[in-house]
């Protein structure tokens, strides 16, 4: 596999995508800065993940959330990065999630590795993953209020205090 193998340009790549779209008709395919992305409604995420895994995407390499507050009508977008080692390609799944009911199905039954990633997304953005075995805060203390990576959560900067030089006792 030499220089020409940037993800998405491997021969047969479109076949994989076509198969996926056949398995789940609600999938919309697109491109973003040269990468292949698909957009699916939240209710079909688990089905897409199952189909993708059957098509050879062995690993869920990343899962995160973007908060498009004030930029888009649907505020959140869950971004799942799947990786196929055998096809040597990636697939990015974008799932719009409304602010009012931020819930998507959990990927843990299909990709156990999504466990920590989903807990992080829950902790930072307050997205609920239905069916997750242990959806608790992971990075922040358990009693923390709010979801810090939301755009409307303040950075929390405090003025730095410069103290006087200590007095010699």
């Amino acid at each position, binding site marked *: 596999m030499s220089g020409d193998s940037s993800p998405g340009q491997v021969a047969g790549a479109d076949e994989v995508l076509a198969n996926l779209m056949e398995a789940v008709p609600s999938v919309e395919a697109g491109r973003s800065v040269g990468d292949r992305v698909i957009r699916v409604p939240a209710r079909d995420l688990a089905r897409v993940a199952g189909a993708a895994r059957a098509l050879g995407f062995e690993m869920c390499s990343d899962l995160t959330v973007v908060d498009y507050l004030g930029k888009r009508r649907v505020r959140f977008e869950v971004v799942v990065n799947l990786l196929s080692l055998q096809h040597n390609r990636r697939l990015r799944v974008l799932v719009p999630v409304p602010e009012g009911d931020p819930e998507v199905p959990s990927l843990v039954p299909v990709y156990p590795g999504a466990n920590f990633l989903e807990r992080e997304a829950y902790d930072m953005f307050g997205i609920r993953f239905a069916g997750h075995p242990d959806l608790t805060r992971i990075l922040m*203390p358990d009693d923390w209020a709010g979801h*810090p990576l939301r755009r409307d959560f*303040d*950075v929390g900067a*405090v003025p*730095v*205090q410069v103290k006087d030089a200590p007095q010699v006792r």
Partner: protein
Amino acid sequence: MAHLTAPPQLLTTTLGKAMRWAQQQSMWPATFGLACCAIEMMATGTAHNDLARFGMEVFRASPRQADLMVVAGRVSQKMAPVLRQVYDQMADPKWVISMGACASTGGMFNNYALVQGVDQIVPVDVYVPGCPPGPQSLMHGILTLQDKVVSGELAR
């Protein structure tokens, strides 16, 4: 009358001075590595820089056996209670060095997650600036602390 002719074998000092001298020479740090600075603290303790020259290479894993806490790195809100507890577990006399910009002021991370300066939780004796402070800076900080202990400024 042999004891009058023999060369003098006595050294007189005050109890305070002797105590401070002893404190200075056997300060054992507790391992409290948090982030990038901890790696530099480890580098200070190992072959090339060799903290053993100052009688301080015995990094103690248990706070009960340590006299000095080197807070090396950023202290998060979640870590702050732990840090305070480790400090409370140390036996007196005890000193604290705040190593690096993050431990001293929060560094470049002025946000919700970090405690902006470890001196809000524990009393700090010496601040070592830098991001990360090189091993030489940390040694300078330690020597400063030793000087202050000997001079009585920070004797406990």
